[in-house]
Each structure stands twice: as C-alpha cells, then as structure tokens.
C-alpha cells in the first residue's frame, strides 16, 4: 500500500556568463564545474538506474540561461579544453602521488572521473548536456520545467508588468526550442511569488509552480492541508509548497546528511594546498588560487585536521542515508495520513548544484533513494503533474507573497546593499516598453538589431544572481560590474537610436558577448 507520494524537485541554475575575449575566464568555470560535478554525475547515474530497471521520477528546472550556455558552441569548446586540462592535472597528480597509499588511489579516482566525464559528454550526451535531460524528459521519468528567462526576481520587476510577461514568455519559448515542447511547470526564480503573478503564468500555459510553505499556510485563505496537497490559485495554476523537514535533512550542512564525517570535504583542495609553481598552470592565470576539483580529504571533524577520503566508504554511507531518509518519509507520511482524507504528498526542492558540487556524494544518495523507494514499494515518487492527474480537485488559495530566501520574503534581493540596482532596472524596462512601442513597425533591420540587444541587456541585468551575490558578499565585484555593464550597454544602445548613429563594431561586440536568446526580437516586450 502506498503511504505517500514524494515529489523531489531539483532547481538547476547558473547565471549567463560568457567572456569570448578571454581564453580562460574564471567565472566561466562556474559552468564547467557544475557540468562535471553535478549534471554529468546525475545523468550518468540516472542512466544506470534505467539500466537496472528502477522506476524513478525527477522534476528538474533547467533555467533558460543555463540551457543557453549548455547549448553555446563557444562555451562548450572551452569546456572540452577545461576537461583536457583537468585530465592533464590528473596525470601529473597520479605521478606525484605514486607510492602514497592514501592519495595515489584518490588521484587515479579523480583523473578517471574527468576521463569518464569526457567520454560521457562526447558519447551519450553527443557534446550537449541538454541531450541527457531530453532523453529522460522524452522517456517520462523526468519532468523538465522552466524558470524566468534570466532568473529575474519577478516581484520586484513587476512594477512594469511587461517585464514579468517577457521573462515568462521568453522562458517558455526558450524551453520549447531546447526541449521540443512547452513547459508544464515553472520554478519561479527564488520561489518568489507576488499577488497576481498567477494570471500571467496561466496566460503562458503554465500548470504548476513551487512556493515556500508560508505562501500557502499564510495564503488567502490558509491552505487547509498545509503543504501536503497542492492548491490552485485564483487563475487556476497549481501551487506546490516546499516541505521544510525533508529539505532540512539534506540542506543543513551541520545536521543534514552532507555533514557526515566520511563524506568528502569541500574546502580542502590541491588548488590551495600544493606548491604554487606546481599548481600554477591549473589555477587562474592571474595567480589567484581556485578549487581544482582534486579534493583528497574527508570532512573528518570540525577542526582543520583532515584525514584521507575513501570514496568506497562514502558510497556505502549514501545507502544508509537513503534508507534513513526513506524511513523518515514513511513515518512522516503515516503521521500526515492520520490527519488527511487523502494520501499525502511531500515536495522536496533542492538546488541541483548541491548534489555533486558541495555534496560530492549527493547524486549517489539521490539514486539510492530512488532504489529504496523502488525496493520497498511503500512510497511512490511522482511529478507534480502526475499528482494533479490523480487528484484534480484541490483547494483554491491565493498564495501569500513570499520567496525561499532567508526569512522567507524579499530581503536577500532587496536591502541596503543592493537596492540601488532597481531604479535602473525599472527605468530600463520603461524605456524598453516605450522604444519597442515606438519602433514596433520598423523595417530597419539595424534599428531592430539595436533594440533587440537592448532587450538582451535588460534581461541579463535583471538576473537575480547579481543582487544575491551582492548580499552574500560572494563575487561581489563581478556582480556589481555585471549589473553596471548591462545598464551601461543598454544606455549606450539607446544613445545609438537617439542620435541615429549606430556603432556597428560596438553592437557586434555586445551581441557576441551577451548573446543569450539568439531567437528573440525586441517586439516580444510588447507582444508577450
């Protein structure tokens, strides 16, 4: 008998970062690391599950900027070079550690991961990571959903409603181009909801979205089943609430599974540990030490003392953690069942990049969880759409404005440190609307190019990542500069129109660097 439904959701996102002028640009490595540590390990293991005959369901958001980067020839050429460089470092490490009973096997282990990643990338994935997602999407075991076009924080952009419509419309179009079908669901950027957003989602054909629990429990009216059944908004879009308990078991670095002392330590890395002259070719060209991915230690404890990592032991522990997670879900479902008149559902959303990057063993844990569910038969893993097909009748609730950020509201993306950006983003949206309206019927292809690039600069400036990184003081300088770059480019392009003087060299430079969404036309800002 099925005691409950588990809906795991992974949110895959990275901001659009492309620097064609540079052979090696550190911030582009965010993507390369995520491919190697997160996306490929997950896809490889899911293929393994399929070969084993394990039934699984996984809902994954693939944000448009990430999909655009994964489909970008320039970036993927660089990724191939990145892999070659990592394998070269691996070979050097295998030599360097010869005779060391702890570190030599680890050097071989990592070197082989990079070799196998390259084989998988060029083989099963045919040089495009999206191929793997499409494969499972088409099989029905994966529900790929979209996100805002550039992960814009929609509540704050909503002072210009066309800015929100355009974020959603382009997201739907990009998803359709990348995956051959329109998305059924959306991961709202930062799970951020505001009053009335559902109307736009409904217009764009979106059937469901994910929100934080207080969006439903403090909704109008309160969701009578908490987050354990979805609700419908007044515009008939289903809202699924995040279950905090299952999130915490995985998210929390201290109390959660990733903190097990036998798991790999994230911070100890040969990029920081080894002699500078030896490691120099594999860190940033300017000499800034960075993570290389070669991490030889396990968490061990809370002090700086770290012991050698043992991948075999860690792999076994993921089985125990998966069994524990399954046990707690079963108990949770039993408790919830006693309070409800239908089979309960638990939605567990996580950042996809948690699995593999920060928590190295995460993809193995996830797949072991699928094995546990398959083996026990007491829980069933499903997608939101499958739940709605089983239970089409749900309470109508107008969700409370909210996000999944710290304190549950908008503080992370709007505070004393980053508020300055919104005056510009709002002004740019208003100008975009004015200029798109004014030149809507233009036959001038050059003018059209300038206006379309203005839209790209606006969209890229709207990415919530910049405000987020300013708040967390991580890559602050890059984030401030990226925001200013898009504001500056937008105004420079506007000046070309105002003074009827197009600088084609500059325009081409902007188009090559900020090349996201090659298919769009500025008119979408009006028609969306």
């Amino acid at each position, binding site marked *: 008998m099925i005691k409950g439904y588990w809906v795991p959701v992974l949110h895959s996102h990275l*901001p659009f970062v492309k620097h064609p002028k540079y052979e090696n640009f*550190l911030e582009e490595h965010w993507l390369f690391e995520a491919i190697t540590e997160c996306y490929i390990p997950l896809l490889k293991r899911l293929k393994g599950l399929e070969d084993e005959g394990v039934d699984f369901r996984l809902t994954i958001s693939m944000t448009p900027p990430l999909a655009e980067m994964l489909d970008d020839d320039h970036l993927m050429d660089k990724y191939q070079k990145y892999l070659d460089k990592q394998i070269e470092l691996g070979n050097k490490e295998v030599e360097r550690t010869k005779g060391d009973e702890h570190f030599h096997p680890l050097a071989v282990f990592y070197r082989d991961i990079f070799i196998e990643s390259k084989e998988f990338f060029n083989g099963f994935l045919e040089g495009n990571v999206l191929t793997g997602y499409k494969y499972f999407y088409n099989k029905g075991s994966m529900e790929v959903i979209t996100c805002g076009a550039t992960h814009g924080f929609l*509540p*704050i952009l909503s*002072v210009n409603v066309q800015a929100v419509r355009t974020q959603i419309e382009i997201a739907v179009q990009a998803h359709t181009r990348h995956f051959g079908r329109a998305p059924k669901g959306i991961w709202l950027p*930062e*799970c951020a909801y505001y*009053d009335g957003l559902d109307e736009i989602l409904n217009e764009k054909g979106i059937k469901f979205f994910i929100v934080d629990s*207080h969006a439903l*429990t*403090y909704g*109008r*009216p*309160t*969701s009578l*089943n*908490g*987050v354990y*059944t979805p609700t419908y908004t007044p515009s*008939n879009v*289903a809202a699924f609430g995040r*279950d*905090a*308990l299952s999130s*915490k078991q995985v*998210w929390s670095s201290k109390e959660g599974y990733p903190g097990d002392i036998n798991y790999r330590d994230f911070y100890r890395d040969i990029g920081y540990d080894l002699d500078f002259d030896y490691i120099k070719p594999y860190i*940033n060209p300017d000499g*800034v030490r960075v993570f290389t991915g070669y991490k030889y230690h396990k968490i061990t404890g809370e002090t700086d003392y770290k012991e050698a990592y043992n991948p075999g032991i860690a792999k076994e522990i993921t089985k125990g953690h998966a069994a524990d997670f399954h046990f707690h879900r079963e108990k949770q479902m039993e*408790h919830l069942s006693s*309070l*409800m*008149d239908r089979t309960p559902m638990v939605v567990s959303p996580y*950042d996809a*990049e948690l699995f593999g*990057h920060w928590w190295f063993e995460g993809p193995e844990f996830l797949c072991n969880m699928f094995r546990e569910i398959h083996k026990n038969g007491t829980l069933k893993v499903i997608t939101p759409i499958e739940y*709605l097909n089983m239970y089409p*009748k*749900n309470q*109508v609730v107008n969700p409370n*404005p909210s996000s999944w950020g*710290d*304190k*549950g509201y*908008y*503080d992370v993306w*709007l*505070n*004393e440190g980053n*508020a300055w950006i*919104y*005056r510009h983003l*709002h002004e740019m949206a208003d100008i975009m609307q004015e200029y798109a309206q004014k030149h809507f019927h233009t036959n001038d292809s050059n003018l059209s190019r300038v206006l379309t690039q203005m839209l790209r600069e606006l969209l890229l400036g709207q990415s919530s990542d910049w405000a*987020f*990184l300013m708040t967390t003081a*991580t890559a602050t300088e*890059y984030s401030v500069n990226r925001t*200013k770059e898009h*504001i*500056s480019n937008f*105004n420079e392009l506007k000046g070309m129109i105002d003074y009827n003087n197009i600088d084609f060299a500059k325009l081409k430079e902007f188009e090559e660097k900020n090349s996201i969404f090659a298919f769009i036309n500025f008119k979408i800002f009006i028609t969306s």
Partner: protein
Amino acid sequence: MNPNTNELVKSSMELENSFSSSSHVIDTLVSEGEPPATIYSIPDRYNKDTLRVLLVNTKKYYVYWEISDKTLEEQGLDLNKDKLYFKVSSKDGAELFEFTSSFALGEYFIKLQFENMKIVVSVGKKVDDKFEELFNSNKVHTFSSKMNLPSKEDELWAKRNLSWTEIVRSTMKEAVLGTSSAEQVKELERLRHFTQMEEEKLSSSTIHKGIKND
C-alpha cells in the same frame, strides 16, 4: 474545513525558519578572478518623475523617487528650503505613515508592519499646511504573517482537467444541476473572480456539492 488543519499547518511551518534555502550552492560555486577590466559608468539620474514602493519583508518597505527639474520648477519647489512630503496609504485611503525629504532623488526604507493589504505611496508638497499630491507610486499587496483560516463562505475547491475547471464550494448543501435559481446565480457571482480565466467554460451544471477532497 479539515479539523486537523492547525496541526497540518504547524507541521508545514515547523522547521521553515530554522534554516534557509538562500544558502544557494552558487555561493560555494562562485569565486572571483582578476578585477574587471572595464569600469562601466551608469546614469546618476534620469530626470523623470518616479516614485516606487517595493516590499522587503513584513515590516520593511523600500521607497525610491526622483522628481524631475521640470516638475520642481512647475511646482515652484526649491528643495533648499522646501520639503517633499511622502504618504503611505492603504487602498481605502487610510493614512499609514509619512516622511519628508529635501532631496529630489532619494530612497527610504519604511520599517513598519502593514499586514495583508494594498498600499500606495504619494509624494506632494504642503501648501498652507495642506498636502497637495504631485503623483503616486505603484500599488503593492503586502505580506501576511499569520494564518487566514477560511470561513465556510471562503472555502473553495477547484477540480481541474486539461480543458476545464470545476469549482466546488465545500459549504454548498445541495447540488441543483442545470437550474437557474437565484441562489445559484448568487453563488456563481461569488465565484466569478476565481473563474475569470475560464469563465466561458463554467456552467451551472459544473457546480457540485463537494466535501471530500479527492
């Protein structure tokens, strides 16, 4: 209403604030390289009349504004001696908060709680101690930080299918299919705002008694 709602909501909220998902992995994924090669300049001001209010949290709101030179001149405002007056009001016109500024371009964080209501900010000048509005801001619906248990009248359930939606009011005592009784017309009126998007697909025959949620 589900008699266990309080427990279900409590369970839903139990750990919500004990940790945060905002500790995005991007935090650990990103590192910063060399200082940016290009320093970009951005406009100091746009010289346009602008006033916007944005939600931050249940007790904090962000207001920014710009008063154009033209408006200052037309209104005879000299901010070396005059002040701008800002009023926060609810949708029904109740004044909630006010502050002043001597700057044509500025920002202000309001730190007060306005729960679950639509608010708007107006900027103006004072003439003979009376507020004269210059223009107002966008309207925003503020956050709620408490449960809003539905009355019998407010508890609605909807049944969705691919091409239609059925609204089910849990408190309806009987389903009178296919009739046009005054009671049902009244009921449909109440449901109107919930079904705007698919109004054309809703007929009286889709109203059912519904007390079970499956």
